């Protein structure tokens, strides 16, 4: 073995040790399961960036509805424009720009509001209306059938209230409910 080979072996050994060190240190913190991105709805301020900042052409963020928090109001501030002409389902009265919320009569005076996710763009207009004046049952969530789970989520980067974080893949949602408060 000549001198150069000796040095080469030494460096190789040192690199192996270094990599091993990094590996050991990381393995102690390693999570066997992966992580996915999710919105904490209690932190969300409904700024509307979710609709535009996602790398997908149509955002992976959609509005979901926590029915057990909903007041089933006749005048839903998530469904109707601030000063609606009439409290009916005419498009001019609706707050949702894509008409993704459907209103069905249940019993007097209660109405149920259901979201058609294929129409929802995640703009959070309804979430804002519901949270400001209602029970806050409408909220945003990242839908994992759409989310690419990028190594860095570009909406998380743009979020002004730091509401988007990695969560364990085993609990991929942070739904609002009557029992869960921030």
């Amino acid at each position, binding site marked *: 073995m000549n001198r150069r080979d000796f040095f080469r072996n030494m460096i190789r050994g040192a690199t192996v040790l270094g990599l091993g060190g990094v590996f050991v240190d990381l393995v102690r*913190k390693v999570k066997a399961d992966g*992580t996915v991105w999710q919105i904490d709805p209690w932190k969300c301020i409904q700024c509307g960036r979710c609709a535009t900042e996602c790398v997908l052409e149509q955002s992976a963020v959609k509005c979901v509805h926590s029915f057990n928090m909903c007041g089933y109001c006749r005048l839903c501030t998530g469904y109707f424009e601030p000063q609606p002409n009439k409290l009916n389902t005419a498009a001019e009265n609706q707050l949702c720009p894509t008409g993704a919320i459907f209103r069905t009569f249940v019993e007097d005076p209660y109405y149920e509001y259901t979201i058609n996710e294929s129409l929802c763009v995640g703009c959070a207009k309804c979430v804002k209306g519901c*949270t400001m004046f209602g029970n*806050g049952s409408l909220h945003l969530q990242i839908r994992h059938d759409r989310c690419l789970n990028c190594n860095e989520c570009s909406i998380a980067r743009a979020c002004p209230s730091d509401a988007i974080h990695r969560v364990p893949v085993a609990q991929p949602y942070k739904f609002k409910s009557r029992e869960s*408060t921030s």
Partner: protein
Amino acid sequence: MILFLAAQRFPPPEFSETGHKLPGFNTPLPRGPWLEHLDVIVLLAALALAAWLALRRRSRRGLVALGIFSLLYFGFWRKGCICSIGSIQNMAQGLADSSFGVPATVLAFGLAPLVFALLFGRVFCSAVCPHGALQDLMLIKPVRVPVWLEHGLRLIPYIYLGLALVFAATGGGYIICQYDPFVTIFRLSGSVLMVACGIGLLVLGMFVGRPYCRFLCPYGVLLGFASSVSKWRVRITPDTCTQCRLCEQSCPFDAINKSTIDAPSRSMTTDKRLLAAMILLLPVLLIAGGLLGGVTGKNLARKHRIVNLAERVYLEETGKESGTTDASAAFRVTGEPVENLYADARTVRDRYVLAGRLCGLWIALVIGGKLIMLAIRRKRHDYEADQTRCLACARCFTDCPQELQRLGLSVPEGVPLAPPL
């Protein structure tokens, strides 16, 4: 916040009349964990296959086929995430922040190519990395980059790596992912700027071999280190180099070190003086790098969410700025005292200053080391693939007459052939 968020302003109804059942949540699930494991298995298999194709089988065609597969699988199907290049940021954040867990898949993607590089050279670059494969396939008419420009541009990845690790370790974001030019092509969507960069680099890559790999890729720096001491390596010739110079122009990535047999000899004293000057310059560079890095780190910290927010809140508190931004408004509703925010911001800034100093030292070391390496004259008998730069693409093999003889193909006339082994 609790007040207006959690308030049940309108008590939810009981529906005693109709007995209406409340609908539940629809919960589409993420990809199953077994698919993540499949990604790791495919990665390991592709690495092993690439090593075999480049070192043993010596097949360019096989590497192209594997490259196309990797491009389709890791690129277009997996949409470029998770990739080994980006995973170094997760690892850096994991090392710096004890509460940050790194998923096993990410760790495997980050370390497996390095381990393979330590054994077989940069076989990951040759046909497993989707970025590399995409550029390799786009290369149609390679032009040579002038030597001085090549040396200069080759420093960029080191600086990029340093900066990326500063941002990742301080929790300031993953700039490698943010400014990845090709992931927009894999996803067929993205910001206008990054799509333009991706297309621009691809067009450039038709003439300049693999511009991202050579002049940008931060992971390539680590692979180069590992590869420079690799156990086995790509050899241009299957047996003996006869210095026929036929391979000289075959590498589009400027990774072939020429034989120094014909090089003009220079006086030893000039060389020694130059080397001594460069070695003396190194400490000067290191001090300057450390100082500049600290200042730069302090400025870079202002890009961090918390520091940015603290500055804004400070301006609002002192009345220098009226109104609120979305971020400051969101901070106000939490009811958190501003002193806590300022303290957090100071912690973040201190971390940036430390990371910036280390990054400055690193960049100074790279530049100083480069100058020293340039001052050293190495004697080289044969034409060899540079162990750091060679991407194991296998293009040069068939330019070697020994290889043609081995394959039983016709050898150009007048070329000295070594006796077959």
